[in-house]
């Protein structure tokens, strides 16, 4: 890993998207689809071209984290992953001790791959488990059993991964506080460094939406009592009351095992909070590479096209890609780099540029920062925006404090447990 010779304060996070998976899960609305080996290789080729074409705009940056997400990035073979990381190390300057994460799904990982990842400098593994119950796994559309997960987990430990996250989904159909508690304890016994526990969101466009979308919709407006009728032979979703008990219990149980909640859905042992994800909530700059990947660069949000053909055309093997990267070399780094690239027509894979006004930056500071259980610092707000947080959001903060949704302590403003439950209700007063 290259350590930096150029001292700079500009920190950059990298997100690299691998849009491939073995099969779509029933709840998944991420950009991913099944693929062949050739397709994956070609995609990594394109990714490397994109990396090379972008690097010159970030010569003043030091990369602090890399997150290889998906899809199922562990589906790539070791060699492709190695080529990808080589390109990253070649192209960017890194900080001393970067956090480098790959998402892995049981059933796509071998000991060889793990060793190769270690060689590529990957230090953190995020394993998608979701449930310890094989029945639950099948219902979610996962391709693995709990047993297979355990194999993956011990392979990872054997390969030397000392920083592992396990993803879980709570409030899945048929779940009760009791069955969730069992899941949590089983996982905590394994002692991963980090656990993400998401309450299921039934997203439009997923198979789950067809089964449960209407129920959840109704739940929002009527009495919140989700019908006890099962959907298509599946058990019903836990009702809201149960869902919140499940959520409450998560923090209590994980606490017993030495995990603390640091964000709405994230728990870690001390010192193992995910730096990459914290960066999103602290509004650090991040560059998204690959299909559909989102970026925040110099207070502008945008994302790459989700159109695979378009992406491959621009960053393909042929001459157009040469041109793209060739011309890109002449683009100067600086404030206008994103827009100038785009308006010059050199880069038509980036879309939906959203240049954030000061007001929008402040709003994001609030709604992203408040996701962290530590909350937001009034002092940081005024040093960033040159105005007191109470001058901008005084009436909202007072109101939510009165309603018991926000609390203030030692200059930090944070959501109360009840505030977390209804955080959208709070956040929409800040946008």
């Amino acid at each position, binding site marked *: 890993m290259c350590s930096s010779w150029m001292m700079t304060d500009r920190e950059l996070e990298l997100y690299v998207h691998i849009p491939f998976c073995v099969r779509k899960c029933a709840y998944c609305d991420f950009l991913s689809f099944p693929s062949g080996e050739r397709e994956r290789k070609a995609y990594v080729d394109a990714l490397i071209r994109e990396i090379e074409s972008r690097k010159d705009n970030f010569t003043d940056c030091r990369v602090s984290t890399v997150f290889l997400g998906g899809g199922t990035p562990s589906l790539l073979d070791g060699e492709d992953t190695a080529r990808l990381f080589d390109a990253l190390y070649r192209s960017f300057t890194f900080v001393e001790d970067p956090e480098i994460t790959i998402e892995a799904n049981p059933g796509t990982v071998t000991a060889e791959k793990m060793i190769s990842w270690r060689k590529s400098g990957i230090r953190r593994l995020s394993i998608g488990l979701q449930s310890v119950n094989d029945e639950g796994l099948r219902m979610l559309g996962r391709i693995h059993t709990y047993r297979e997960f355990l194999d993956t987990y011990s392979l990872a430990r054997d390969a030397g991964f000392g920083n592992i996250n396990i993803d879980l989904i709570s409030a899945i159909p048929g779940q009760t506080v009791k069955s969730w508690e069992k899941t949590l304890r089983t996982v905590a016994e394994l002692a991963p460094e980090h656990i993400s526990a998401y309450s299921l969101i039934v997203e439009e466009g997923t198979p789950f939406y067809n089964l449960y979308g209407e129920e959840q919709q109704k739940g929002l407006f009527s*009495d919140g009592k989700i019908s006890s009728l099962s959907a298509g032979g599946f058990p019903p979703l836990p009702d809201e009351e149960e869902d*919140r008990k499940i959520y409450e219990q998560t923090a209590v149980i994980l606490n017993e095992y030495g995990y603390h909640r640091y964000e709405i859905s994230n728990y870690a042992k001390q010192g193992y909070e995910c730096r990459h994800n914290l960066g999103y*909530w602290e509004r650090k700059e991040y560059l998204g590479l690959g299909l559909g990947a989102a970026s925040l660069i110099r207070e502008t*949000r945008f994302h790459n096209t989700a159109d695979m053909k378009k992406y491959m055309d621009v960053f393909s093997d042929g001459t157009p890609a040469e041109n793209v990267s060739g011309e890109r070399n002449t683009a100067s780094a600086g404030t206008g780099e994103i827009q100038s690239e785009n308006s010059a027509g050199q880069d038509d894979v980036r879309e939906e540029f959203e240049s954030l006004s000061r007001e929008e930056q402040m709003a994001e500071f609030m709604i992203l920062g408040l996701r962290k259980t530590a909350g937001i610092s009034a002092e940081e707000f005024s040093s960033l925006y040159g105005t007191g947080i109470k001058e901008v959001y005084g009436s909202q903060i007072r109101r939510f404090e009165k309603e018991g949704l926000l609390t203030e302590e030692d200059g930090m403003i944070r959501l109360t447990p009840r505030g977390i439950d*209804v955080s*959208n209700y709070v956040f929409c007063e800040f946008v």
Partner: protein
Amino acid sequence: MSVIDQKKIRNFCIIAHIDHGKSTLADRIIEMTGLLTSREMQAQVLDNMDLERERGITIKAQAVRTIYKADDGEEYMFNLIDTPGHVDFNYEVSRSLAACDGAILVVDAAQGVEAQTLANVYLALDHDLDVMPVINKIDLPSADPDRVKEEIEDVIGIDAEDAPLISAKTGQNVHEVLEQIVKKIPAPEGDPEAPLKALIFDSVYDSYKGVIVFCRIKEGTVKKGTPMLMMATGARADVVEVGTFGAGQFIPCDELSAGMVGYITASLKNVKDTHVGDTITNAERPCAEPLPGYKKVNPMVYCGLYPADGAKYPDLRDALEKLQLNDAALQFEPETSVALGFGFRCGFLGLLHLEIIQERLEREYNLDLVTTAPSVIYKIHKTNGEVIDLTNPTNMPDPSEIDYMEEPMVKAEIMVTSEYIGAIMDLCQERRGIYQSMEYIEEKRAVLHYHLPLNEIIYDFFDALKSRSRGYASFDYEMMGYQRSELVKLDILINKEEVDALSFIVFAGSAYERGRKMCEKLKQEIPRQLFEIPIQAAIGSKIIARETVKAMRKDVLAKCYGGDISRKKKLLEKQKEGKKRMRQVGNVEIPQKAFMSVLKLDDD
């Protein structure tokens, strides 16, 4: 045609049941008399408001003058007066008819005589008009002109032997109609030298010309400079311009004399000075007495109109004032509601009139409105002998001060095919109808006569009628005065606070049912909030129904990473937008459409 031979004038209207082809025939007559070329024809030229064209109904009276060169070689002046086609505008219809000398009765060759056909024919006969039947839509496969001819003769009792069999759509045999107009509709009478006597059958406001009065000259002559006097309102003005009606335009002329139909402008600023039905005379040489039949139209239905955005209150007032320039029947006065802020209590001729005004405010003036439940005018006899007209439920006196109350009743005539008689009788029963009689007009169709309280038909009676008869029933009504009734004010409490805009007056025997339905409906309309919200219906201090909107327990995004942020922000913005459309009552946010939910209690 500067000087018109009275004998060559034909003033007539077309009457028909809705959808029997009145407007299409009017179009065809205008087209075939050569005033417009086919290319200039916009379908249904007489209905010139967007709304009229969309709904296929005529809201305001319209007139058009055409010249017809008849088979006898002479040129005739046709004044076709299109009448509004809905019971809400019955009075306007009657005045339009009074401006005519004859009427073309259009009957659908497949559907035959309908309730409105009858009502309109009787209205025409009341005005001594010669009714000339025409059988339309003979191009339909289901057309049965012989049966319909028989029906016209049996049911209405007018000779239909040589009624033209036409298709207004294709133009087939319309020529025969034109010839019969010449032969069968009498020429007007009246002395051009007599003192001026002109009937106002409509008036519109034009921002350049001011009020334009549509009138029929019965006696005398009017021209530029004539000092006018409106005999009922007492308004005076000098005539600025007179003229006749082209298609969609005004054609000035030198004078209008007895027998003619035309317009007068006199830089009047307000249609309130020119009531439909009033008589115009020459102030210096007035006629002895006005034309008969004038009455001041009074609103039958009231409701509160509030701007969705409180800041738009002045805009709403301006818009109402502008609409009123063209619509003397529209009344409004400011009112305030605890729940809805500043708005207006508006009076309308009926529910259709209400809907039309509401739609025009929203479309033509771009206003977002909150409408409260419509109410009729109740007469409250207080124990101290005082009688008050109640148009807003909020103003109902304390029950201890009330001796008794009365509500307006209507005489309803419902025409229905025999298989649905049971269903319709059930409906009338549910709506507190009092059965009067039933007669079969032919083997399979009957007319039901009921007396119904007006407040039972102002909400959704039409819809219920249509749905229970699969569209086969038709309905007409006329006011028949007041009747004593057991009425109570039903209040709605949301989170223990009375919401004035949701109060309504209801028959005591239906109060429990209505209260329960209202609570159920509101429960669906009010989104869950941080706390539990009781919704209660109450009569006085007695709670008669209750529902609860449970507290919101969960409204959280479990995931929000780099790729989610833009999308999630949009969701939050949308959520915030939704909140803006809510009304804060106490500490509860109520969506605007909840205030209108009372309207749709029976949509099962």
